[in-house]
């Protein structure tokens, strides 16, 4: 008579998973004492996630009715991740890709700030408990470098600058005209940051010389 099939009830699976976590992560001595945490890569962990079949609402841990931000996998370009299917169960365990160019980036968090309202709850616990060293996995990172930051032009700000610049330019030209009529033909100093003014000054200089020579009236 052969051996019976191993039981695969959820209770048995939970016990097996717990055994796997203990065997993988906890280093124990021969006499059963806990020595510490085994320093191995999370990608070597066998088996499924501890709570892989959690519902979506269960996967997103909540506190004070605010969704908690969690470390996410990001692609080559930073993008907001959203499940294409609503209420789709998401695995909670770390999944490491096995592709060329996969890089594990560990960055030190500096100038940590906590925002009121639990909008940024990356720290689950207390400050100083070394919980801020979350690794961020960037898959398919080209040349192991992040893309440079691209700052888009602000339309409203640009229009305001342009309006201010035109007003300044008009006022400055009026002064130049008055100064030129008073001091006669001369070459005005240019303003480096406004080449358009320089061109208009040059035109004004020709006209001014014409005025001073009597070939043209002001």
């Amino acid at each position: 008579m052969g051996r019976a099939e191993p039981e695969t009830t959820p209770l048995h699976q939970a016990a097996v998973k717990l055994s796997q976590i203990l065997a993988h992560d906890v280093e124990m001595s021969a006499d059963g004492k806990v020595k510490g945490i085994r320093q191995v890569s999370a990608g070597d962990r066998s088996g499924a996630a501890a709570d892989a079949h959690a519902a979506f609402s269960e996967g997103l841990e909540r506190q004070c009715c605010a969704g908690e931000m969690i470390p996410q996998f990001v692609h080559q370009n930073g993008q907001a991740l959203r499940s294409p299917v609503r209420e789709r169960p998401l695995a909670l365990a770390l999944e490491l890709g096995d592709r060329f160019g996969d890089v594990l980036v560990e960055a030190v968090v500096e100038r940590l700030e906590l925002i009121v309202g639990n909008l940024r709850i990356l720290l689950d616990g207390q400050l100083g408990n070394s919980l801020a060293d979350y690794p961020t996995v960037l898959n398919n990172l080209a040349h192991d470098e992040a893309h440079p930051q691209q700052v888009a032009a602000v339309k409203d700000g640009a229009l305001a600058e342009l309006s201010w610049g035109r007003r300044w330019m008009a006022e400055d030209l009026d002064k130049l005209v008055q100064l030129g009529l008073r001091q006669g033909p001369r070459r005005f100093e240019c303003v480096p940051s406004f080449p358009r003014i320089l061109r208009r000054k040059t035109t004004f200089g020709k006209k001014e010389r014409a005025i001073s020579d009597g070939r043209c009236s002001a």
Partner: protein
Amino acid sequence: MPIEGAGQVLDTYNLLAAGIRRALRRLAERTAQRTQTVAKRLGLLVYLERSIKGQAGVSVQWASKAGRKVLLEKLVHGALRVQQEIQQVLLTALPKACEPEPTEPDFQLSPSGIRGAAPPQ
């Protein structure tokens, strides 16, 4: 194939706590009891909190290695306790007619600790 969705990184402390919490839930389902009842009976009520490391969980001296080890020992003790309970439930729930010979479960407690999945190489 690109990975879609989000993954959560759990350290060993939270991973063990989540495993215990999940085992307690499955144990409660199996015994038709409330999870709080089962956890209270086993003295593992703290694992039903949201986090084992917050103010709702266990106070831990994170600055010292010994303080962190205390939490780890507590987690391992809780995991062994819930495994022991699961083992008892599984053994008592086996019907007599379906028990031709004792089967060795995938997980087993030993005096030296845990015997189950092979440790990583």
